[in-house]
């Protein structure tokens, strides 16, 4: 049975606050500025640099998910959170799986070409 709620009731189901937006904004601003300045000033290089900026991006994503998209703040049963974690699982399978397969194929093809030239 579907129950229709009034405007004031549905407003309570939306979880944004001014504090959350200010925290999310400042965190995103600082994290973006840090990764931008690290790359511009060439403070790090190679793998260390890649891991640092990817790490900063993930931290910023978590901040935005919590403070802008309100993940995990709904009432029980938390279907949105369940769907979110399932998406993360599929995302990792698709992204990392593709990279793994393609780099493996690339290595094999390149090895064959190198031996063919010799």
């Amino acid at each position, binding site marked *: 049975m579907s129950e229709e709620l009034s405007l004031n009731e549905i407003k309570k*189901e939306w979880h944004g606050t001014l504090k959350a937006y200010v925290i999310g904004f400042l965190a995103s601003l600082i994290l973006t500025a840090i990764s*931008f300045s690290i790359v511009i000033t060439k403070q790090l290089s190679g793998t260390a640099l890649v891991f640092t900026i990817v790490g900063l991006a993930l931290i910023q994503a978590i901040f935005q998910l919590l403070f802008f998209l309100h993940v995990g703040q709904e009432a029980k049963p938390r279907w949105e959170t369940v769907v979110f974690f399932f998406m993360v699982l599929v995302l990792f399978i698709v992204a990392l799986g593709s990279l793994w397969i393609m780099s493996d194929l690339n290595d094999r093809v390149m090895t064959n070409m190198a031996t063919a030239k010799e």
Partner: protein
Amino acid sequence: MIQPVYHTPEAHADTSFPDTHQDTFSKTVLGFWMYLMTDCILFAALFATYAVLHNSTFGGATSQELFSLPLAFTETMILLCSTVTCGFAMLASLKNRTTHIIGWLAVTFLLGATFITLELHEFKHLVYEGNSWRESAFLSSFFTLVGTHGLHVSVGLLWMSVVIGQLLYWGLTVHTFRRLVVFSMFWHFLDLVWIFIFTFVYLMGVI
């Protein structure tokens, strides 16, 4: 003696508050959230494609030669500001201030339009310099990934103008508030995707 079962609302244990998981608002939000999650998978596939192909330049220009980091940083800041002004529109809606909502949405619209203008400018520049999507697998995957995000932002701008129109016509009601919430989720999601475009495409592209 068998007790009769009454299938009436009164037979339930507690009906003093509505079930928040069966009203139209919650169902719409959950359904839209599922759409956003599938959209995430779409972007994951495009990111994976880009990651696989970003070195396949076919002898053409590489990402180090093409990308302008200050421009990408400006775009990031504009989109971040627009996501926060969209949040301010939501906060104004909690206080029933329709003119404030429309004002903040108008600011969000302008920032979003600026973002799209900068992106189109960048694309135009790339194509005029002879680096269109036809030149290499790297450029094809770049234009597909960034272009798909840009298309989402453009659809968001269209959607925002419809929401502003509805707010002007009906004011803040149950239905316009629901649409506003769903729109704000979409807009925040686009900023989230952009963080990864900025990091994986632009920052890692110039390293």
